[in-house]
């Protein structure tokens, strides 16, 4: 960080935008040397997440194209239950918030609150998965499995892929809790926690798109 005197001088210009080249501390121009490892780790994982979002967009495109191809089978309007979707949305949104709380606790190096927030995040994620699994079971029991129509194949591929991501996230979450417990806030553990937070928030962004495009538009059609 810059010296306190310099901080005061840049009070109205926290990023030193107007002083590039003079002070040597304008950011993003390489004048302060390479970015720290933490910044590079976060940026690299952000690139992976964007590629994951691009992959999801292919499933979304397939779903949008095949939405009307019900082959005489049940439509989304007959299958989807708004109450269940609202409950799943609430679980995932609250888990995203508690995950953010774990990041705050980590920033202030509180192991107890980090573990507690991660645990609540995991419970909410598990509740989401159980609700979704029972939805899928009900649909399959009513003869609306992925083999019924192109619409249902696309539905199970898209929503199931998100569910698999949440399952992988839960495994990762358990691993991070164990690593924080055993190894504490080592630099590499902090980097992994940053990546896990980014991953979990991104899953919630994808769920926002799913509950709108698949469930709400399906119910409204």
């Amino acid at each position, binding site marked *: 960080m810059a010296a306190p005197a310099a901080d005061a001088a840049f009070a109205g210009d926290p990023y030193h935008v107007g002083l590039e080249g003079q002070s040597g501390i*304008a950011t993003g121009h390489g*004048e302060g040397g*390479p970015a720290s490892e933490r910044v590079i780790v976060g940026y690299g994982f*952000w690139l992976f997440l964007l590629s994951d*979002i691009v992959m999801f967009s292919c499933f979304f495109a397939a779903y949008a194209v095949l939405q009307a191809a019900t082959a005489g089978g049940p439509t989304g309007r007959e299958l989807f239950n708004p109450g269940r979707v609202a409950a799943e949305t609430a679980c995932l949104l609250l888990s995203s918030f508690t995950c*953010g709380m774990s990041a*705050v606790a980590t920033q202030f190096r509180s192991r107890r609150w980090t573990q507690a927030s991660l645990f609540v995040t995991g419970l909410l994620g598990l509740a989401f998965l159980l609700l979704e699994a029972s939805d899928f079971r009900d649909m399959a029991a009513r003869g609306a499995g992925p083999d019924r129509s192109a619409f249902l194949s696309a539905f199970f591929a898209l929503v199931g892929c998100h569910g698999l991501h949440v399952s992988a996230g839960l495994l990762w979450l358990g691993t991070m809790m164990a690593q924080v417990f055993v190894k504490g806030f080592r630099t590499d553990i902090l980097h992994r926690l940053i990546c896990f937070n980014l991953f979990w928030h991104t899953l919630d962004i994808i769920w926002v798109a799913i509950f709108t495009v698949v469930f709400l538009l399906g119910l*409204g059609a």
Partner: protein
Amino acid sequence: MNAAGDSDNRQGRQAGHDENDRAPGIVEEARTPGAAARSYAIGLALSIALTVASFYVLGTRLVWAPAIPVALLVLAVAQIGVHLVFFLHITTAPDNTNNVLALAFGVLIVGLILAGSLWIMAHLDRNMMPMR
């Protein structure tokens, strides 16, 4: 350019890193846990409001019925924006340029895939020979 001042400044920096840069997903300026948590609390409140609005719009007569899908999509885009700003801490600050550029490229690809697929498949569907 003040070359001598630059090199002095660089040597004084910890481990030669640009500590002013910021990674996605981190708020560093917060000095107290309460201030750091506030961003997430605002994000949660806005997300709940937008989610409730989405479910409300579905069953209301307040919005002209043919416009409901558009309203739902607008609410979803707004909520994704809220998540990006308050949960992932993507900002317009210069230290976030790399993250924003990567996001812009991702949005471009997603837009191409979605719009392109829908356009091409609708076109093929319309030009298909009758099945019987």
